């Protein structure tokens, strides 16, 4: 995750220590005082979802799927994660709210000292649920909305999904839960982005996460709806401009870009053009400390059947299963040559990445997209939109 508001507008956030090793300089209470040593774990609690979104990386379905970790198994998994020092668990799905033990698991994680956060489509959140989640210790709810009403409902395969999500967001905010937007940018919804931000900001949302499309699950089926490099560059520039416009008028929104570390290089270039060389150097330094694409290092995924993946988007390959072996043992096992090379990827990147001046802060971007596009784990990310003159 790259915080545009932190890098361009110096807005402090709870993740400054974890993300940039900059806790000492931050005015906000910190998730962690030190740079993250263990991964943030995305746990797909279930494959079941009440919606059927066209870009779902987990290929979630409305029916139940076999082999889900039960409540007791889930608690033992959380014990393992706490023992290993995992700082944050993102409860995801499918739709996590279809499970009736979500509040119990959130509370259990919180009791263990893990920060529980939630990724949801928001449509099942009632005022009562929001209050229960808050009381259980939930720290953040990220609600997916992918366009203005008509476009979002088309994405999500259900009429009324937008209105239901906004009601869910309202319930979370009324309960005092920190709540943000998750928005996957594609060719179909890029133009809706400013309108959605305005509408949800009016509702009281102040955190906005913009995801690039990854080619996992059904995301691979709509790769042709991905933005062209030029359009992607425009969309990221729009996020930067919009962040600065809101801040200039006193609305201190937090904005983040997720899933494409070409954005890191672009932000340095953007800062140099609009804010000067000194700011560009500061931005570069933060991003160097951030460490580039996190797959296999700072983020991990445990799916609903217990398979451990290098990221949540990479569901087709599993490093091991937590029913067989502890999460920490799986994650630490660098006898796996793929995991080892993923963690030392800078030495192996090829093509235009090999000599890119931004290799240190990007680390080649998404290895899954490189694999999908080129059949080569260390080929360039096809979503890199940087110009040759910028990377030389």
């Amino acid at each position, binding site marked *: 995750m790259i915080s545009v508001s932190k890098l361009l507008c110096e807005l402090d956030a709870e993740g400054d220590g974890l993300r940039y090793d900059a806790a000492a300089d931050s005015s906000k209470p910190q998730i962690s005082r030190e740079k993250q040593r263990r991964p943030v774990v995305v746990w797909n609690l279930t*494959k079941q979802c009440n919606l059927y979104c066209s870009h779902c990386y987990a*290929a979630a379905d409305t029916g139940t*799927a*076999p*082999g889900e*970790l*039960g409540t*007791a*198994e889930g608690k*033992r*998994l959380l014990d*393992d994660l706490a023992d290993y020092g995992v700082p944050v668990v993102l409860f995801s799905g499918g739709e996590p709210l279809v499970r009736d033990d979500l509040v119990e698991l959130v509370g259990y994680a919180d009791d263990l000292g893990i920060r529980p956060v939630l990724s949801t489509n928001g449509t099942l959140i009632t005022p009562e649920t929001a209050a229960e989640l808050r009381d259980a210790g939930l720290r953040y709810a990220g609600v997916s909305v992918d366009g203005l009403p008509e476009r979002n409902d088309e994405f999500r395969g259900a009429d009324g999904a937008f209105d239901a999500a906004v009601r869910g967001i309202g319930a979370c905010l009324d309960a005092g839960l920190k709540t943000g937007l998750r928005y996957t940018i594609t060719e179909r919804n890029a133009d809706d982005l400013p309108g959605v931000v305005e509408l949800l900001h009016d509702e009281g949302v102040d955190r906005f996460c913009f995801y690039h499309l990854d080619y996992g699950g059904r995301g691979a089926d709509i790769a042709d709806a991905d933005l062209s490099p030029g359009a992607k560059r425009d969309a990221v520039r729009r996020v930067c401009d919009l962040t600065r416009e809101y801040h200039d008028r006193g609305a201190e929104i937090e904005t983040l870009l997720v899933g494409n570390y070409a954005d890191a290089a672009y932000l340095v270039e953007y800062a140099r053009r609009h804010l000067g060389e000194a700011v560009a150097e500061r931005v570069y330094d933060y991003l160097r400390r951030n460490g580039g694409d996190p797959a296999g290092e700072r983020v991990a995924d445990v799916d609903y*059947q*217990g*398979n451990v993946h290098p990221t949540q988007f990479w*569901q*087709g*390959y*599993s*490093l*091991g*299963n*937590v*029913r*067989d*072996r*502890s999460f920490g*043992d799986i994650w630490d096992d660098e*006898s*796996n*040559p*793929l995991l080892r*090379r993923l963690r030392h990827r800078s030495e192996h990147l090829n093509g235009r990445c090999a000599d890119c001046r931004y290799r240190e802060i990007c680390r080649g971007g998404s290895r899954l997209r490189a*694999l999908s596009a080129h*059949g080569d*784990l260390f080929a360039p990310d096809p979503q890199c939109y940087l110009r040759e003159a910028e990377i030389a």
Partner: protein
Amino acid sequence: MVENPDRHRVGDHPRDAAGREWEVFVRPDGADPLRHVGSVSAPSVGVAYEQAETLFAWCADDVWLCPADAVERYSTHTLDDDAERVPVGPDGDERPRES
């Protein structure tokens, strides 16, 4: 060497809902032992091999695949609800699982 361990047979849980899961083993060089390197999801062994080759061809002479549901797993660490205790020791005593 683990002596007299608390070992359990992991239950027969599905490992992939959409297709099949295939355990992947690679041998870096002819004299090396086979090494388990995870699993891939694929509808057939042919597709599983293609995926495994894409991921591991650079480091392996041999790639072996086994359907995940054909593997019997006995482990000293499992969080599986359905894990069965197995006899250990010369008298075949069962030892209770730690909670």
